[in-house]
């Protein structure tokens, strides 16, 4: 149980996918301008991460590994994620139209979001059990959510500031991201000591 909590907390704070592992930077920079779209995107990412882990983990353990097909991992995982995203979109459209309205536009983007493929591959590489893998995916998704929401706050404050011409646009956004990521460095080592 303690191990699960450690995995969850370290995925959210210490090994934050966006701010310390650099996965999912594209949506982090692109969709974080407004709080609403940042929340929508992160919820869609959490959802797809959990689904993708639930499908890819058994596939790797029960299908690829016993047959010596481990090297097909990349191809199989990206196909599963792409198919899953399509499927989720169709199901949501048919049965939960309100949710589809709010998450719909973000779903197609998730296929090329490296955080999702990253979390499925890392779950296998780290040798997690199924429960640990699911918790790690949840934590990673929550970490993504946290980073997106925090950063959209930073950006909305930045909107009215007067920035030097060559820094306008992305450069100043990246520097703001550097400072946000600096604040996450403070969590390093906290969680190991919390349960030691």
């Amino acid at each position: 149980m303690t191990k699960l909590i450690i995995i969850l907390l370290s995925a959210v704070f210490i090994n934050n996918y966006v701010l310390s592992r650099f996965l999912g930077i594209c949506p982090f920079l692109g969709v974080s301008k407004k709080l609403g779209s940042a929340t929508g995107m992160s919820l869609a990412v959490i959802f797809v991460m959990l689904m993708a882990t639930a499908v890819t983990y058994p596939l790797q353990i029960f299908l690829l590994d016993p047959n010596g097909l481990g090297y097909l991992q990349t191809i199989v995982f990206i196909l599963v994620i792409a198919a899953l995203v399509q499927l989720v979109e169709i199901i949501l459209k048919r049965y939960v139209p309100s949710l589809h309205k709010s998450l719909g536009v973000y779903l197609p983007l998730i296929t090329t979001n490296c955080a999702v493929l990253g979390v499925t591959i890392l779950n296998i590489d780290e040798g997690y059990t199924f429960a640990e893998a699911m918790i790690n995916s949840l934590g990673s998704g929550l970490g993504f959510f946290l980073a997106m929401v925090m950063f959209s706050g930073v950006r909305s404050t930045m909107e009215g500031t007067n920035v030097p011409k060559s820094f306008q646009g992305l450069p100043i956004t990246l520097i703001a991201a550097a400072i946000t990521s600096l604040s996450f460095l403070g969590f390093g080592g906290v969680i190991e000591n919390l349960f030691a």
Partner: protein
Amino acid sequence: MKTLQNFTKGLIKENPVLVLVLGTCPTLATSTGVLNALGMGAAATIVLICSNIVISALRKVIPDKVRIPCYIVLIAGFVTMVQMLVKAFAPALDQSLGIYLPLIVVNCIILGRAEMFANKNKVFDSAIDALGMGLGFTLALFCMATIRETFGNGTFCGMAIPVLADNRISILTMAPGGFLIFGLLMAAMNKFAKHKPRKKDFGCEGCPQAASCGKTSCGEEKSEEAQTND
């Protein structure tokens, strides 16, 4: 002449990382050391050349509606090959690149070039374009890695530099340093580039945010100065 242009535009004018802002994740993550950066650049360039050639050769065969899944499968195939080659011949590089090697699949540069260039142009042109873009990617990675390794770690390609090795700014090799150096490089690029290409010159095909931004041309979406002036 046109061939030469196809090649050189990827290096500076349409540099995939600093101007088109594609493939930021591997740029930030693997630029902590010069050797890592060169390895990542080489791996991505090989995948890019192979995928551009094959996609360009198959551009009349692949139906328009299912082209993205087809491209992804092709790219994933090449990535797997590169991954196996690196594992076999450069295991140290495989160790240090880790997760970012399989993640070349979702590198926006590769899908972006397939969409923007390879599916409209001849095989030879596409290969040249891929080579230029790949070298541009490697160049940007190399610049960032040189700054981060020299000042952050006091070394270059693993060799210690006398004074800097004792006065390390180690934050540069950590995550915040990556964002900071990337931002500063991009600002320098804006300052010194004579002709500043705008996003709208390239259309929305390569932009991963195209669906959610809902515009047909990315032009003003990227430049926040337009937004703040409104």
